[in-house]
């Protein structure tokens, strides 16, 4: 009897697959929005870390280290459970996007930092010599040069973030895993829902990692 229920039930799997796969749009939406947030947040953190005021620089560094070295789960709990105490009550989805976006801002700030530090000093000096404003230097000279080689690194972070989205289920976001667990709690069948979620993640992340590898080859640093 136990074995009979354990064997993968294809009929049941086909029955629930559409619901679960439909939830993939929440997963993808969360990934895209959170990553856009992180791209902007990461740049801001990287700039704050280069600030000319010691206090700003130091605060940015502490924030980055704290965010990088602590579990995403706790950060999500803080956004979801603690923020409302300070008048910031957000929907679970927005909390999830914010939580993911904040942690990945810290990750990406390190990527920006590496990019900025790798830029030849002559580029900055030329901008100074030409009398460019700092705004113009960043927008026209620095960012256009550091962003393209960062594309594959960003790609890897997108995939990593995508694989972190199941954590949003813990703050009641109905993404892939949340939907699957919801189905499982009704039917008491865990095999099919969780397998479908795993397979979906595998297919999507493996195919995107092939794209990233192509990007890596394209932007390979030639020494």
């Amino acid at each position, binding site marked *: 009897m*136990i*074995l009979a*229920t*354990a064997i993968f039930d294809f009929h049941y799997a086909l029955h629930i697959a559409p619901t679960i796969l439909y939830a993939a749009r929440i997963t993808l939406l969360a990934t895209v929005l959170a990553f856009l947030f992180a791209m902007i947040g990461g740049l801001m953190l990287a700039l704050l870390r280069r600030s000319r005021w010691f206090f700003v620089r130091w605060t940015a560094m502490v924030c980055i*280290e*704290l965010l*990088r*070295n*602590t*579990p*995403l*789960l*706790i*950060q999500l*709990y*803080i956004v979801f*459970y*603690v923020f409302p*105490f300070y008048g910031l009550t957000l929907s679970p989805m927005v909390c999830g996007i914010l939580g993911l976006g904040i942690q990945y801002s810290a990750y990406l700030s390190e990527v920006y930092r590496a990019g900025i530090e790798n830029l030849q000093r002559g580029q900055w000096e030329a901008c100074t010599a030409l009398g460019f404003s700092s705004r113009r230097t960043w927008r026209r000279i620095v960012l256009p040069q550091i962003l393209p080689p960062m594309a594959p690194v960003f790609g890897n972070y997108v995939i990593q973030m995508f*694989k*972190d*989205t*199941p*954590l949003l*289920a*813990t703050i009641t976001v109905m993404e892939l*895993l949340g939907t699957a*667990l919801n189905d*499982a709690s009704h039917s008491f069948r*865990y*095999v099919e829902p*969780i*397998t479908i*979620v*795993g*397979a979906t*993640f*595998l297919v999507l*992340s*493996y195919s995107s*990692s092939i794209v990233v590898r192509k990007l890596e080859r394209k932007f390979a640093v030639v020494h």
Partner: protein
Amino acid sequence: MNQDQLHLLLDAVPTTLEVFFLSLVFAVPLALLAGLARASKVRVLRWPAGIYIEVFRGTSVLVQVFFVFYVLPLYGVTLSPLVAGVVALGANFGAYGGEVVRAGVLSVSRDQREGALVLGMGPLLVMRRVILPQAWSPMLPPAGNLLIDLLKATALVSLITLTDLTFAGQELIQTTGNVTGIWLTVLVIYFLLSLPLRGFVSLLERLTRIPQSERTP
């Protein structure tokens, strides 16, 4: 946040560390085996290792934790929460570590291997005395990051009823209602736990660094 609450949180730290170290003990041999097999020229070794690495890297770690905890019992494999957490985290980080090992081994130049073979060393000796010692230093920075990631991932075992630091925080909030204080303290404790790890990794990096002049003639 008073002293008693802090004590209750700190009492759960050993469980977090236990999950961390047991997963590490499980992940390191897996990573070495999978990484070496994946870097091998023999297809029978390379393919299974590749499938293992891609499957465990491609599906999310939380999904794997739930799979081990909820699905395996249906097939007659019932594991305690601790073992389930350790198996899932260990297998997942074994796969990530496998990629690190592979990249490290492949980073050693082919001349080194060929030179050692010409000197009459056997394949195992070449691996142990020539390739691995040189593969160490490129492997350390990514392996160090994985170590921190593993520590952070142990928080997931709170979702399969294990009383780790995160779980203790949740329980304490239910009895005290001190949401802000407890979550911020938990966050800081995780951060403090990560510091010695970072220190340990940078110490290893310094110890295994090969001077440039010795590496290239």
